């Protein structure tokens, strides 16, 4: 489509300071992750042009939307972007259909007339709201409203979709209702998405690229797996609490007779309780560092099914003095283990050591 996203913003507002220089991939979901006050929403608003930051620069590929060095600023209504806010913010005076058409009509004024009804029907189908088109926003559930808001943003033919904690205002039930649709968008659309969130589970499930923000600064930015497996990031631990862990992208390989499903990933295979997905379905799972234990000899008889060969990359202290965090390499896939310092000393854990990692549990995302 249009090339990678360049964003440079510097905002100072009293106590709050945002100073970031980001390059995001041109495809997939980039998550901006941080506590409230870390500047993630301000960054998103600056990208949308809703806030004009002095000295800012924002471009998608070769399309520049802001370059204050040249005093250049494209106002939000002239930027080909879609924004989904935390509250769906549907226009109450328009029906669902009217809301969805709002941006579409205005885009088509400038673009050649195409199969517009098809596109609207297609997007409605994609988000499961085709039967709601004639309703008023007040008659929708929170989850439905948010899906309409996403559809409305998509129909304005954006080159980038900005989502500001789109699930944060919803209860767990509604969240679970929307997440599959977001995953579907992720699979079926090629436009880049910038996804602001402070929920680790959402990020682990959806993101391809992860940006960690702390007090207005970028602490880390890179592919999800790499950032999650970095052990030199105290901020990351603070953010994910003692939830440090990696995300594994696996595939359903086989449903076995004893109600287990075998998943294959770059580093080998893992067994989980039987899944309903057909063979070949990609599945993300999260392996928490605290659920990984290490052993020097292959366990002969153990109740733990999942055991992979690994090599120690490095180790780092954790926020609790008695524990260390160990980064492992499992045939190219990163894995983290959190063990006691005593065990680390007993096993003489050092970089390059080959050992076995036992995975006690795997959290499937989705």
């Amino acid at each position, binding site marked *: 489509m249009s090339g990678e996203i360049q964003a440079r913003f510097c905002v100072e507002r009293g106590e709050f300071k945002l100073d970031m220089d980001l390059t995001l991939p041109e495809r997939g979901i980039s998550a901006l992750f941080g506590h409230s006050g870390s500047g993630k929403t301000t960054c998103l608003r600056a990208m949308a042009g809703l806030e004009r930051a002095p000295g800012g620069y924002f471009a998608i590929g070769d399309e520049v939307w802001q370059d204050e060095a040249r005093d250049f600023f494209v106002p939000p*209504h002239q930027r080909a972007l*879609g924004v989904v806010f935390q509250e769906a*913010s549907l226009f*109450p*005076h328009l029906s669902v259909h009217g809301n969805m058409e709002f*941006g579409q009509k205005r885009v088509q004024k400038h673009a050649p007339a195409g199969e517009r009804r098809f596109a609207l029907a297609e997007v409605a189908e994609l988000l499961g709201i085709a039967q709601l088109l004639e309703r008023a926003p007040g008659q929708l559930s929170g989850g439905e409203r948010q899906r309409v808001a996403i559809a409305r*943003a998509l129909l*304005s033919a954006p080159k980038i979709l900005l989502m500001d904690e789109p699930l944060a205002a919803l209860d767990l039930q509604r969240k679970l209702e929307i997440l599959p649709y977001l995953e579907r968008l992720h699979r079926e659309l090629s436009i880049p998405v910038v996804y602001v969130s402070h929920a680790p589970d959402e990020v682990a499930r959806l993101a391809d690229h992860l940006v960690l923000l702390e007090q207005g600064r970028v602490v880390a930015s890179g592919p999800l797996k790499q950032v999650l497996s970095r052990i030199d990031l105290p901020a990351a631990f603070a953010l994910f609490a003692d939830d440090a862990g990696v995300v594994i992208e696996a595939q359903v390989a086989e449903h076995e007779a004893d109600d287990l499903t075998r998943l294959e990933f770059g580093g080998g295979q893992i067994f989980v309780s039987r899944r309903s997905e057909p063979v070949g379905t990609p599945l993300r799972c999260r392996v928490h560092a605290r659920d990984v234990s290490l052993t020097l000899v292959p366990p002969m008889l153990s109740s733990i099914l999942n055991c992979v060969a690994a090599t120690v990359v490095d180790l780092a202290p954790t926020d609790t003095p008695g524990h260390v965090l160990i980064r492992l390499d499992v045939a190219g896939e990163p894995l983290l283990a959190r063990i006691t310092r005593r065990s680390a000393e007993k096993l003489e854990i050092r970089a390059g050591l080959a050992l076995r990692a036992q995975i006690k549990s795997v959290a499937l995302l989705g």
Partner: protein
Amino acid sequence: MEQADLSAVWLTLKLATVVTVLLLAIGTPLAWWLARTRSALKGVVGAVVALPLVLPPTVIGFYLLVAMGPNGPLGHLTQQLGLGLLPFTFPGLVVGSVFYSLPFVVQPIQNAFAAIGERPLEVAATLRASPWDTFWSVALPLARPGLISGAILGFAHTVGEFGIVLMIGGNIPDQTRVVAVQIYDHVEALEYAEAHWLAGGMVLFGFVVLLALNSLNPARRQTP
């Protein structure tokens, strides 16, 4: 009711209609500006708009009379434009009424605009609507209850005014003799029966207006 009463009623309705239309045309952009501006002038302009709420109508009428008179700035202007002088004419009455009823129209509309908040306007911008487009397609429809209240209040207030009319309109049949003045004339002439007809009509009118406003007021605006 005699002919004079009917023509007073007709004149009053005509005045109130013209004034309401003008007030919506002037008051809506003014209310939008007041609701959205961060300018230091906001307080000053707001106070000027609200001034008729605290001043006796005779004070406003007096100054308008002076301003629109042969030596006043407005008088100079209207004479130069070839419109003649405004005092004691129907257009003069319209000018006075617009000024006097302005706060009754601006304030409900301003409140309605302020209640919309920033978000719907931002959403419209991200959906490619220019500020002008957003004003017509989002702000005005969302402020509709405020616009209707403003129009009703402006209309009713113009129908009921008396002091300003006497000061700058006088009592010229078919020109400036509105219902309120006509009632005054009847009472002065001790024609209580005629006064009752008109006064009773005004009471009924006022009641209907308030009833209409009340049915509007619990403005059931959903906020999804």
